[in-house]
């Protein structure tokens, strides 16, 4: 029999199980945020079918999972480039060059916020406070890697690293 969550790899399902175990047995839905992250890690972004698969695995309504996926900023509901760069431009970061760092990346890649380079390599996003204002300018790579003190030289280095 085909389950709706067959589209997720067994490795992903194993990782989701580990998250489910953190919560009381009757509160599986608590793992939905982590499960969506795991699904996004595997698929690159969250298509409606992927969200439905997560919902089905956790025994919740697809709309409830979609509400979560559309509420939190770091879920990608559309395809993104291989490297999603998110630059914080909030005030504390801006005082130390956050906006200028974003301008610099835009010019280097030839794209604006919420755009992807033609080769599909980079997507640029404007971020809100990442809780690292002392390290400004700050950027996130693919949601999980934080890069601190991103002055021109460091940005050049990062872009060159992203193959």
């Amino acid at each position, binding site marked *: 029999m085909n389950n709706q969550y067959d589209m997720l790899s067994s490795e992903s399902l194993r990782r989701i199980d580990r998250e489910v175990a953190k919560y009381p047995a009757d509160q599986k839905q608590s793992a939905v945020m982590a499960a969506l992250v795991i699904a996004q890690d595997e698929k690159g972004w969250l298509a409606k079918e992927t969200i439905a698969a997560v919902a089905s695995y956790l025994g919740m309504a697809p709309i409830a999972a979609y509400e*979560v996926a559309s509420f939190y900023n*770091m879920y990608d509901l559309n395809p993104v480039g291989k490297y999603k760069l998110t630059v914080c431009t909030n005030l*504390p970061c801006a005082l130390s060059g956050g906006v200028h760092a974003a301008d610099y990346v835009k010019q280097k890649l030839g794209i604006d916020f919420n755009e992807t380079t033609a080769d599909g390599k980079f997507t640029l996003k404007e971020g*809100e406070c990442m*809780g690292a204002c002392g390290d400004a300018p700050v950027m996130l790579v693919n949601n999980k890697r*934080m890069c601190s003190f991103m002055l021109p030289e460091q940005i050049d280095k990062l872009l060159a690293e992203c193959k």
Partner: protein
Amino acid sequence: MALIDTINPLLTTGWAKGDAGWSLKDYEARGGYAQLKRILSSKMSQDDLIAEVKKSVLRGRGGAGFPTGLKWSFMPKAAPEKYVVCNTDEGEPGTFKDRDLLRFDPHSTIEGMIIAGYAVGAKRGYNYIHGEIFEIYQRFEEALDQARAAGYLGNNILGSDFSFDLFAHHGWGAYICGEETGLLESIEGKKGQPRFKPPFPANFGLYGKPTTINNTETFAAIPFILGMGGEAYLNLGKPNNGGTKLFSVSGHVNRPGNYEVPMGTPFAKLLEMAGGMRGGRKLKAVIPGGSSAPVLPADVVMECTMDYDSIAKAGSMLGSGAVIVMDETVCMVKALERLSYFYFEESCGQCTPCREGSGWLYRVVHRIEHGEGRPEDLDLLNRVTDNMMGKTICALADAAAFPVRSFIKHFKSEFEYHIEHKKCLVDPDVQRAGSGFFSASATAGTV
């Protein structure tokens, strides 16, 4: 960023070795888990434990400053299922202390949460960690594994009849989840929309069960308070403002970073510890407690001491201890525009005054900044804030309103100049140079 400077370090004693001093054996070597052992072996009563915390006058470090011991005492004793929750959803612009606490010394927060669990009779806890700091979340998970393996977490901790387990829940980018009931909704796997209060979490919290929620720094302080005694901790600070506090200093200083100082330390001293003003430029304004706190002009803040009461008297809030320093290169209209955009972007949308008001504020400030302001706009902004403050389920509407009102109050002439002359009082080239981005590297390309 590692810690640079302290006065009477307490919370940051473990930060000396940077990333090399966070693990369990390092924490134990500096006296870690000794308080948990003492409480369990002496079978200390819950009332005595809470009384000791009350004596310290530890006030919640997340922003509201509510007395921690009092909060713990609100938990109903008889309830069979209770929770302890830690708020590490640190997304208030300017705040970055909890990230470093979990990075350099995660076990002090873990020990503080276990002790809190003992005090309020909870068997399970969650630490909600800000989405953008995945590496810190991973470290905390590793620290939890260490604590579990050493018998500090789980059933019958250290052979006692007390059982407690603790898990990390990772956020994924929503400022509103820093609001405690929004955070609880988020742990339950829902949108992080705050709940109407009352009932408060002590009665109806996670999964509808009694729950104590404190900030990371609050939990991290607990082992130190019990180690030195509540009274000694209180005496480190000022009456009604116990202990030391972490201040995250950002913006136009030479050495942005976290500084631990006793409550009541003069702002001027904190500024000096952060290396003074960048490029020797003149201080213009400071937001003393995170972006939601009213801004204070230089002459006012220079007379303040860093504690709840002094900052409140000056007309602002100590908040989370996020000190955003702005020098004379800053255009206050532009600064406010960015903050207003933030609250617009992060409003969860469930209360009309906030959902509509935050966007309205942003659009009006935006048009003033872009030379399309109207003479009546400043009155309009104040009027919109009147219709937001105190009229919503949570404090985000107030947080959006405070910057608008205080920026206009203290820097009215700048706003008027923008409206009248359709340009900024501060020269654009001066503003551009202020960030230091372009002068930072001689070899880098130009934009």
